[in-house]
């Protein structure tokens, strides 16, 4: 589970611009990860077992972890990073995979992508690191505990693909998989007492050698001001048609 800036937050860049300005940002759980967590909770309600939340990031991520615990996860592992470490998706995936291996798993659920940097790689790379089958962009999931197989519907452009895979596996969640529950007040109270195991990034012994580095970061060019046509509706419509043809080149 990743903590990301709320999509309504106004993003500003740090001077030097390899990172965004994190001051004043409203942080939320990555929405696709909420689908993943919800699916995990439903599977647990159906089959029993335990939902362990794994998150990676600086101390602020604890807030998202508590929210996830308040939704009903049993406990959590927080891989605590500091700003000095330069991470890429492969490093992140290796760290998460290592925690998964320590914890044990029947099924690993992630969001299909994080809405901040849109790489859509962490789930698949965790599967690679653990040598597991992966099913991505899943909109429906069924587990057969006896045969230890999963059956999933994947959303493709204009089609639904149905696949099967043996467990354990990695599944990445797409919007539509379910409707995540709210945390409840009793669970918020209980979340305080649930275990969050902190694992220092350094203790994982991963070589801090990212394969991909951010070179620079810039904001998209400002949009030109909107034109508002006023006056006689007939003339305004004529002017609109002219602008659409001559300036916007869309008709």
């Amino acid at each position, binding site marked *: 589970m990743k903590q990301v800036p709320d999509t309504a937050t106004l993003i500003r860049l740090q001077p030097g611009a390899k990172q965004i300005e994190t001051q004043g940002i409203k942080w939320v759980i990555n929405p696709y990860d909420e689908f993943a967590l919800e699916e995990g909770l439903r599977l647990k309600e159906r089959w029993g077992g335990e939902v362990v939340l794994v998150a990676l990031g600086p101390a602020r991520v604890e807030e998202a972890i508590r929210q996830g615990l308040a939704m009903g996860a049993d406990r959590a592992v927080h891989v605590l990073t500091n700003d000095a470490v330069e991470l890429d998706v492969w490093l992140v995936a290796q760290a998460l995979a290592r925690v998964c291996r320590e914890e044990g798993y029947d099924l690993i659920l992630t969001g299909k992508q994080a809405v901040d940097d849109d790489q859509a790689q962490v789930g698949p790379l965790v599967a690679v690191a653990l040598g597991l089958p992966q099913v991505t962009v899943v909109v429906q999931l069924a587990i057969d505990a006896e045969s230890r197989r999963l059956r999933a519907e994947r959303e493709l452009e204009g089609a639904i693909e149905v696949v099967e895979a043996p467990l354990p596996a990695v599944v990445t969640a797409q919007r539509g998989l379910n409707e995540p529950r709210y*945390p409840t*007040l009793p669970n918020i*109270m209980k979340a305080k007492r649930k275990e969050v195991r902190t694992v220092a990034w350094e203790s994982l012994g991963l070589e801090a050698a990212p394969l991909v580095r951010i070179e620079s970061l810039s904001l998209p060019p400002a949009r030109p001001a909107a034109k508002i046509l006023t006056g006689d509706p007939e003339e305004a419509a004529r002017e609109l048609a002219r602008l659409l043809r001559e300036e916007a080149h869309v008709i």
Partner: protein
Amino acid sequence: MWLTEEQSAILALIDQIAARYPRRYWLQKARAGEFPEELWQALAQAGILGLAIPEQYGGSGLGLQEMALVQERLAEHGIPLLLLVVGPGLSLMILAKHASESMKAQVLPAASRGERVFCFGITEAAAGSNTWRIATTAERQGREWVITGTKHFISGADRADDLLVVARTRPYAADSREGLSLFVVNLKSPGVRLTWEPMHLTAAEHQFQVTLDHVRVPDEALVGEEGAGARYLFDGLNPERINVAALAVGLGRHLLNRAVSYAKERVVFDAPIGARQGIQHPLAEAKIHVELAAAMNRYAAMAYDQQEDAGAWANMAKVGAVDAALEAADIAIQVHGGNAFSEAYDLLSLWELVRLFKTAPVARELALNYVGEHVLGLPKAL
């Protein structure tokens, strides 16, 4: 920040619920005269209705501070609920403290889950501010009480399952503060009749005249001791004032947010009106007054939670918050120019509700009387 981890989590939860049931939803329901049932159910499922009910009765055992935060935040999103005030914020507060053990065990767990919803009935046509003059009576007959009288302006009586009602068990005597008693009355009981009272108010709840015609309730429906109701009432009416102050603070913020975004956008005489001191200063003043009231109200809630006498703070916060919210409403209306009066902008509907709070649940003058007499030590006001 001064918020506990739980309090932040509760606010985040309310934000999530409000994102699913925003002002648009609430307004559509209110205008159609329907109760925002989905919003209410979401609050029930999230455990918000049982927030202040002790854990042993299925609640979360939190206090008025948390409840006020919930009210504040709901109102800030423009989705205030009067039933949340008169039920969890008033009636249930009294029951949790003073009801018989059997009544608590019977009612509170269901109320925590939202399966038993309470409204509250004290006002009568001839006795509003002056509760001592109520004419509803309860008479003991064997192991039952027989209640007769007519309550007035009872919010949410159509949606509620039960009414916490104030009745006389002894005749009025000018020199006595005894004689009022509280009862839990199931609204499905024989002899209960509701008559809708149409109001000029955009709200989630309707008001009703509730007629009780020889309604029989069992002995355990009596809350605490016979005749001692006035004492118990203040364990509910102070929270009600704090809840209403919280709603006013939230509505004030909502109105100011709306006013500020409009003032930034609206260009008149070649400048956004928000750049003009004549607009900016009243907005800043209203903001200051709203936040001052919020701080005082927090103080009031804290006093209540720490079992101190919260009357002084609760009355002061209620007056302060409602005055501030009215100030915010007025400048928000002014900033919006003629648009403020168009239905599409939905501003006067907010003013109506804020203005209600100057009169109900307690008139401004009565709260000031309390401050004059009990805080300042002046003679009882005439």
